[in-house]
Each structure stands twice: as structure tokens, then as C-alpha cells.
């Protein structure tokens, strides 16, 4: 995930806590929760006609090397040329990251930048080393991952069920969809204080925020997926003899699942965001807690180290998702 690294620490230093973390996990210019979700939704209908592909091509997503490969097939000629270009890109990226870190290190050493606020790459590296070598960071990573997973699956399940019901019943859809749109338009981070009040400082509040965030994404994917399902497919299945249940099982659900799938990266990213934001606002464990804790002691080094840990997590998750996407998008339209 070398592409993640060029931009990290600078902006993190300025924006500090939670929103900085959001930025990192999505790798897209929009850094606030709500602006991301707002774009996630309206983009979906664009590819409604040709069934959405397994790969989230037009949904804001985690940094995606695929996009680069796909794009380059259009104009770059033979394999050797492509390989060369890839090397050039990688070299420039590595040089930029190294240059940036070196400049940072030097600026701090030369006292042109205040060590107190901006720390120093070497110090951040040392902190990371001690976290990982002592093993003290693993429980925090584990907790954050657990919250993310629970939030992702809980939110997906909830979104699937409610999206399905509202899409199938016109009346219920008319009643509830505008309300959910209202909720969707609101920055969901502001729910975090309430949720922590209700669910406490433990894992429950983190999962709850994560579920809400993921739910809205999946809900809209399913809702549009089923409302916009190709009517030709429905008509054909009915003529072939499908009853209501068979229509759901063979046509509507698979159609909805392809939409869920195309928003997979976004929802996993947001599951992590929900968990970390809630941790940051109030908890005693997790990566978000590490960052908040360091901040409360004015240790910019600890904040940076926490951000790096988050970045690494996003990188690993991203790799896993790509593998899953490749495996499951066998039938995608070319």
C-alpha cells in the first residue's frame, strides 16, 4: 500500500483527531463523514442499467490500485511499457515519501518546526517499535477490528432487511425513506456523544455507531438495488413461473447483493470510521483510544503513531477486500 503513504502526516498534524483518521481510511479527498456518505448514495443509480459490477468502480472507495490498472489498459501499449511505467510510478512514490519524511525530520532537528506539535518521524518510529515489540498495541488493534467487524455485519444485515422491506412495500417506503434521507444527510459523528451516553464506554457504543453508519450505506444500496431492478428480469422470471418467494430468492436478492457488493469497500471503511470515532470520543481501549490518550497528554508522537497503526490496518483490510472482490465478481458485466 505504498500509495497510502505519500500524504499521511502533514494533514494529520493539522486536523488532529477523528476527522484526520477518517481521511486516511478512505483515501479520497472528502474527509468528513457526511460528505462521503452523501456522495456514496447518489452515485449508485448511475450504473443502474448494466448490473453493477463486483468492483466498486464509481463509488468513492479505499485507495484502489485496480483503477489505475484498468485505466492504463486503455492507452498504454505493450506489457513491457506498462511494467516500466509501474516501476517509474513506484520509484517516484517512494522518493516522495522518503523526501517528505527526511524534510520533516530535518525541519524539526533544525528547530524550524516545533517538536512539541509536530513530533519527528524517528520518534514516531521509536514509539511504534516499542508498541509492537512489547505487544501492547495488539489488544487495541484487536478491539478495533472486532468493533469494525461487528459493526459491518450488523449494519449490513440491518440495511439488507430494512432496505428490502421498504423497497418491496411502496407505502412503507414512502413513509420511511424521507426520514432515513434526513438521517443520512446529517453528519453521523454528532450521534457519537449520545450513543456513548446510551451505550457506555465499552465496546457496545462503538459497535452501535459503526452499525448506524454502515446501515445507511447498505440500506440505500439495497433500496435502490431492488427498486431499480431490471423490470425485464422480473417479467421474464414471472413468465417462467416464479412465485413471490422464488422471485425474491432468484432475482431480487441477488440483484440487491450486487449493489451491496459494489458498496463493500465504502461500508467496511465506514465501519472502521464509526468504531474509531466512538473510541476517540470515549473509551479505554482501541486504536481511537490510543490516539485520544496521547492527545490528552499532549504527546503528538503518540497521536502520529496511532494514525500510522490505523493506516496499516486500512492497508491490510484493503488487500483482503480486493481478494474477496476478485473471487466473487465472476459474472460481472464486462
Amino acid at each position, binding site marked *: 500500500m505504498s500509495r497510502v503513504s505519500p500524504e499521511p502526516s502533514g494533514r494529520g498534524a493539522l486536523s488532529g483527531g477523528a476527522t484526520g483518521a477518517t481521511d486516511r481510511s478512505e483515501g479520497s479527498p472528502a474527509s468528513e463523514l457526511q460528505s462521503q456518505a452523501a456522495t456514496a448514495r447518489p452515485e449508485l443509480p448511475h450504473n443502474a442499467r448494466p*448490473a453493477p459490477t463486483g468492483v466498486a468502480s464509481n463509488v468513492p472507495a479505499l485507495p484502489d490500485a485496480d483503477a489505475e490498472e484498468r485505466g492504463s489498459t486503455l492507452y498504454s501499449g505493450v506489457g513491457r511499457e506498462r511494467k516500466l511505467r509501474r516501476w517509474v510510478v513506484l520509484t517516484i512514490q517512494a522518493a516522495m515519501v522518503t523526501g517528505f519524511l527526511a524534510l520533516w525530520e530535518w525541519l524539526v532537528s533544525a528547530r524550524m518546526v516545533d517538536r512539541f506539535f509536530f513530533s519527528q518521524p524517528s520518534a514516531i518510529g521509536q514509539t511504534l517499535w516499542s508498541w509492537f515489540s512489547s505487544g501492547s498495541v495488539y489488544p487495541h488493534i484487536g478491539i478495533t477490528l472486532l468493533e469494525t467487524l461487528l459493526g459491518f455485519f450488523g449494519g449490513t444485515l440491518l440495511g439488507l432487511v430494512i432496505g428490502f422491506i421498504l423497497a418491496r412495500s411502496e407505502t412503507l417506503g414512502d413513509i420511511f425513506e424521507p426520514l432515513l434521507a434526513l438521517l443520512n444527510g446529517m453528519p453521523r459523528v454528532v450521534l457519537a456523544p449520545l450513543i456513548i451516553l446510551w451505550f457506555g464506554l465499552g465496546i457496545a457504543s462503538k459497535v452501535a455507531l459503526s452499525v448506524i453508519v454502515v446501515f445507511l450505506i447498505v440500506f440505500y444500496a439495497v433500496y435502490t438495488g431492488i427498486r431499480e431492478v431490471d423490470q*425485464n*428480469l422480473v*417479467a*421474464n*422470471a*414471472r*413468465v*417462467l*413461473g*416464479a*412465485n413471490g418467494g*422464488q422471485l425474491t430468492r*432468484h*432475482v431480487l436478492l*441477488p440483484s440487491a447483493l*450486487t449493489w451491496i457488493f459494489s458498496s463493500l469497500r465504502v461500508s467496511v471503511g465506514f465501519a472502521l470510521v464509526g468504531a474509531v470515532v466512538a473510541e476517540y470520543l470515549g473509551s479505554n481501549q482501541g486504536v481511537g483510544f490510543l490516539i485520544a490518550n496521547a492527545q490528552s497528554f499532549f504527546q503528538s508522537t503518540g497521536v502520529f503513531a496511532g494514525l500510522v497503526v490505523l493506516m496499516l490496518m486500512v492497508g491490510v483490510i484493503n488487500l483482503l477486500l480486493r481478494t474477496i472482490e476478485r473471487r466473487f465478481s*465472476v*459474472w*460481472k*458485466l*464486462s
Partner: protein
Amino acid sequence: MEPSTLSSTMSEAAISLREVTRRFRPRNRPAFVAVREVSLDVREGTFLSVVGPSGCGKSTLLAMISGLQPADGGEVLVRGEPVRDVRSDVGFIFQREALLPWKTVLDNVALALVFRGQSPTGARGAALEWIARVGLAGFEHAYPHQLSGGMRKRVSLAQTLVYDPPIVLMDEPFSALDVQTRNLMENELLGLWAENRKTVVFITHDLEEAIALSDQVVVMTASPGRIKASYPIDLPRPRNVTEIRFEPRFAELYEQLWADLRDEVLVSYEQSKSRAVG
């Protein structure tokens, strides 16, 4: 109900339309009549084509026969019974792509049998047989997007014929194919049809295709669609759709039918122009 006992008392019509009317009320646009008081009998075992200018309600006719859309007036009878819901004994091959993109050729073809509660193994066996009959052996595990347009049409054919519906409705099934593939498919369709002579209602805007395939061709008027004329096609069978066009009798029929169709096409063209302006 046994169709054979009915046919003796109620004529041999597999499909009869009695003064059928269908209106549409689209949002933000004035309501219009798609089909007005159409009466038509299709005898069992007949290959009947309906030609007409675009927008004349041809597809609506099929939708009403299959039960996908209700008639607003008049009565639609299929094998003697009034149509109230989607009929399971009527096959429908759509103009647009209707295969499930997330299922393989095999699973797409087996679909109707699975819907009818057949065991997966039985359904697959029958599906395999039909895949071979439409010339797609070896492509059982391909997904629709991996096939060409012509191959996808073959899958659609197999998907419908696998459950052996006595009536098959086809809505411009070959209009998206190139000319060569199209002639090939037309010939294969005739071959399959000759085996057990199902009742076929075939919609097309292509007069040549209609004459080459059918026993009877019905010409519809421009919107609102009514039946203008009906011609029996007395060309000998078996036919080769590519070669039959050179027969003198084919040319005669074409001329007669075109004389009827031409005026309607012109009316339809004027309508579409005024609609575009207004």
C-alpha cells in the same frame, strides 16, 4: 380443463382476443390508448406474425396475452380460459436481454423447471439437453456476459422451450442481431418449431422476417393500434428464410402487405414528429 375437449366446442383458437383495449396513463403526460378494440383468433399450431409501425401496441398485445398486463376492456382467452394472471403455459421471449446475469447458462435454462418444483438434478438434465439442442453444448457454465448476442438469444430460446409451453410469444427477439446471425437464428427457430408446431405469436417490424417465418401475418395500424389486415402466407414449408425471399410468391405477398403497412408507417412517423415538436 382439457384444451382438446374445449377446442371442439369453442373453435380451435389457442388465443382469442375479443375487442381488447389497453390504455396507459403515464405520469406527466396525457393518457393514450395503446391498443383499441382488437379482435384476433390464433389457431392452435399456427405461426402468426404481427407487423406494424413502432409504437402501435404490438408489444402490449403480447403482454396482455401472457397476463403480464391486464386488458382494460374486452376479453383475452388463452386455450379457452380468460387470462387473469401470468400464465404458466405461455412462453415469452423478450426483445431485451432477460437472462439472469448472476446465473450460468445451465442455471438460467433450468430456471423454469426449478420454479415448477422439479428436483435440481432433473431440471439440470433437461436443461443440458436443451442447451445442446440450441447448439450451445460446451457453454453450460458460461455466464451470459461471456456470450455473444446470438448465443444469448439461443439461451433465451432454450430457457423457454425447456418447459414445453404450448404457446410461445416472441417480441422482436432477433432485432438486436446482425443480419447473418439473424437469418441463422430464424432458420433454427423454424426447425425447432417444425418439430412440434407450437402456437407462436411473433412480433416484428420487419415485413420480410414476418412473411418468411409465418403462416399468417397481421398488419396493425399506427397508434392507437387496431388490426388493419390479415394475410395467410401460403409459401411451402419447410422454408429457408434466406432463400425464400427470391420466390416470386414471396415478392407478391411482400408487395400486398407493404401497401397496407406503408400508410401506417407514414402516419406513425408524422405522429412521432408532432410529438417531438409538441
